[in-house]
């Protein structure tokens, strides 16, 4: 990119500015967890998001992306964040709450009020279009 940078800030990854999870992607794949990626992290990101990456790998990283507070569980707060980002705040508070409740109903296998990695994997590996939407083509 002209200047011999080895670390790119997430502001520089402009191509995905429309992606609601752009900050999360940057955080998950960066070295310091704060969104600063080296070339290796960048390559990692593309390797996971490519078409050839296996489902389990993608599911694992998807889980990390959707886990906003990095506590290895997708709890209600994470779900609310996801919905708000996906709809850009267009849904009302009750609708958001209803959606999160339904998701927990559907996917929470161990009934602890949040999704663990297994619950998530269980659910996402059944999605017919997970592979086709969770990939970035170069």
């Amino acid at each position, binding site marked *: 990119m002209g200047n011999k940078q080895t670390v790119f800030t997430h502001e520089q990854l402009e191509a995905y500015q429309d992606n609601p999870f752009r900050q999360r992607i940057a955080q998950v794949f*960066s070295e*310091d*967890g704060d969104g600063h990626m080296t070339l290796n992290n960048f390559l990692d990101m593309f390797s996971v998001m490519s078409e050839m990456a296996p489902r389990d790998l993608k599911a694992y990283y998807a889980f990390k992306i959707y886990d906003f507070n990095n*506590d290895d569980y997708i709890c209600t707060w994470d779900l609310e964040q996801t919905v708000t980002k996906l709809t850009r705040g267009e*849904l009302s508070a009750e*609708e958001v709450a209803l959606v999160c409740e339904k998701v927990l109903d559907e*996917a929470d296998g161990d*009934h602890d009020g949040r999704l*663990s990695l*297994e619950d998530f994997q269980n659910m996402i590996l059944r999605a017919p279009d997970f592979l086709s939407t969770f990939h970035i083509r170069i």
Partner: protein
Amino acid sequence: MSHQSKRLEEEARGGARGRARSGSPRTGDRLGRRPSSKRPPPGRRGSPPGQQERARGSPRPGSPRRKQTERRSRRGELRGQEPRATERTYEGKQKRDGRASLREQRAPPKKEKEVLKKEEPWTRPKKPRSSSLASSISGKESLSEEELARILEQVEEKKKLIATMRSKPWPMAKKLAELKWVKFKRDFDNFKTQCIPWEMKIKGIESHFGSSVASYFIFLRWMYGVNLVLFCLIFGLVIIPEVLMGMPYGSIPRKTVPRAEQEKAMDFSVLWDFEGYVKYSALFYGYYNNQRTIGWLRYRLPMAYFMVGVSVFGYSLVIVIRSMANNTQGSTSDGESDNFTFSFKMFTSWDYLIGNSETADSKYAAITTSFKESIVDEQESNKEENVHLTRFLRVLANFLIICCLCGSGYLIYFVVKRSQEFSKKQNVSWYERNEVEIVMSLLGMFCPPLFETIAALENYHPRIGLKWQLGRIFALFLGNLYTFLLALMDDVHLKLSKEEKIKNITHWTLLNYYNSSGWNESVPRPPLHPADVPRGSCWETAVGIEFMRLTVSDMLVTYITILLGDFLRACFVRFMNYCWCWDLEAGFPSYAEFDISGNVLGLIFNQGMIWMGSFYAPGLVGINVLRLLTSMYFQCWAVMSSNVPHERVFKASRSNSFYMGLLLLVLFLSLLPVAYTIMTLPPSFDCGPFSGKYRMYDVLQETIENDFPTFLGKIFAFLANPGLIIPAILLMFLAIYYLNSVSKSLSRANAQLKKKIQALREVEKSHKSVKGRATASDSGDTPKSSSKNATKEDTTPHSASQSQIPDEKARGSGTVPPASRHLPISQPPGVRPGSGHPRSQTRACRSASGRKAQRPPC
């Protein structure tokens, strides 16, 4: 501090050893010992400084190899002791855990903690400084995970390659050659991917419009491939031999333009209607001679013509079924999507391929709408109202639509009848000649929106409504097509009935010519000029011409619709928006959306017509190839320039098999008329490769009798016996029934197994959660939990980590486990890990308990 960190950085990068440091003599010592620390045997783990250096060396980004060797050396021994795992990766867990354990051990000595703290600035300059180790652990873990995963993959690949190499007792040169071969294959595969036509165009469309619009273009490209193969088949086996080795133009009556038509034969309007010179060319059935063998190769043209016609259908059938099978294999075969609607909407609805802000905007809107829809569905499923009214409305809507369909069918029939009358009189205007095609195209343009408006009465869920709409449009096109065919058949029968008369006329004309007076009998009479011989009306060529005309007019109508409906509309909206009362872009008419289903159905039906017409007009497939080529470029341009992304972006995954199913249905339906005409109608007496035969399939009989050895003839005669064919058909029915019942029972067994797995999983989970709640911080259960964990998929590294906890506790590494005891078991959900502290506490708590379920709620 920063000074020191800079020094540390320099040291790390440059690898300078033993540089004395003013701030902390200890640090200097440790750094000084660095060279030796890399080589010590595993047993020296007990010395904190050495480990610290090693550990310090690891998170450096610029030295992956050192890390690798360090990790490798430690992989074996450190597996035995492990705190917890916060994040799981594929295979790198042990290494991470190894380093983490080192950190845990370093915890007690305070000075080392300080050094660690000082270390942090250059490893993670922006991470909030915390005195706890866990945050640094997490940082370094996330730091190395991806690298670990990547490096491991590379290592595995190389290992495999080297293993295969090693296992074979080859000389070095051969091994090198083999590796070069692998590289060559990979390069060739890359090259092949680059050769796929139109890939960049389709990618561009995909990023702007989403995967559903791109699926139409992928379907178009696939059709183009199929048509290309069919064209090569027909061109190579039928057209080229006739042109090269058959009799040239003008030698026999069927290949010559009749005298009466000759003056107008070159006019463009005549050529455009596929009359004149085009009609008497290799593009149509009537041109082909019925000679049994032609040329020096003794190529059996009539036989080839027949077999190519049959194999066109055979190849198409095979390719469509194979594509359908691939589609069904690709998608997972459980219909459990109903159970996970909201989850799938939340986690898989965003299409990461979108790179355009307009598309992204409409995608956001689509997601919002789909959430709202599902919410409404959910709320509606709880209440039921007025079933009778909806039922009545639906019946009414279906009745109206059936009326429309019948009306359109009758209209087509009427118009075709009228065109037959027109063809009898002279001076037909352009409109009268093309009335049928115009009416059919107009119906195809106006009826679908009409159906949509009527369907608003039905109040279906949009997905179901779309399927009804597609079914109705399909019925419309089918009805039109079959009415068209029926009218065509009337025409054919008419021509056939006139054949007897013309045969007589021809016979008498020839007789008169040869017996007329005024010629010197000693010189043999020249044969009658082919242009003067009275010609029968060749019904096969007439049918071929009809299909050609229909294809061409359909193509023109499509292009004109795109130009007017999409492009001009877009220009109008763009340029007139400044001087118009209302906002053209937001309200009516706004930009057009790409009509995926309409276009796909149009493509499918056109292909059906090609299949029907290709037996009578071998050139039709070539025209179709040209048409698909121009369509591809034209529609790509039109989509990018004048369409906007859909408001409701529908997913492409499941619709593909629906379109393939439609294509298969159309294939069968287009096979029927051709088979009927081959079996029941007699071929024309003076044109085509089967002229003079009783039925077209007689060519098979003749070939078997004359060209194959006699025993084969007997075998075929035996096989064609109805007494053998009917039992064979019955046997096939039985086989279908049996296979169907087998597949049903297998899918039932599949469902039961799934239920069992589900139940087992839930039982396990409830067990674990019960156990976890019962014993909060009891480490005595770790063996049980680790054994339980071992039954799960990706828990092998995890169990290793779990079993290391008691060891760690036994060593009593200070601050971490006691902290967990003080941690309240349940935290309010509102506690967010804003600072590193609660997070580290949770992490520590997790490590202490050693059980996955044993985690305080976030």
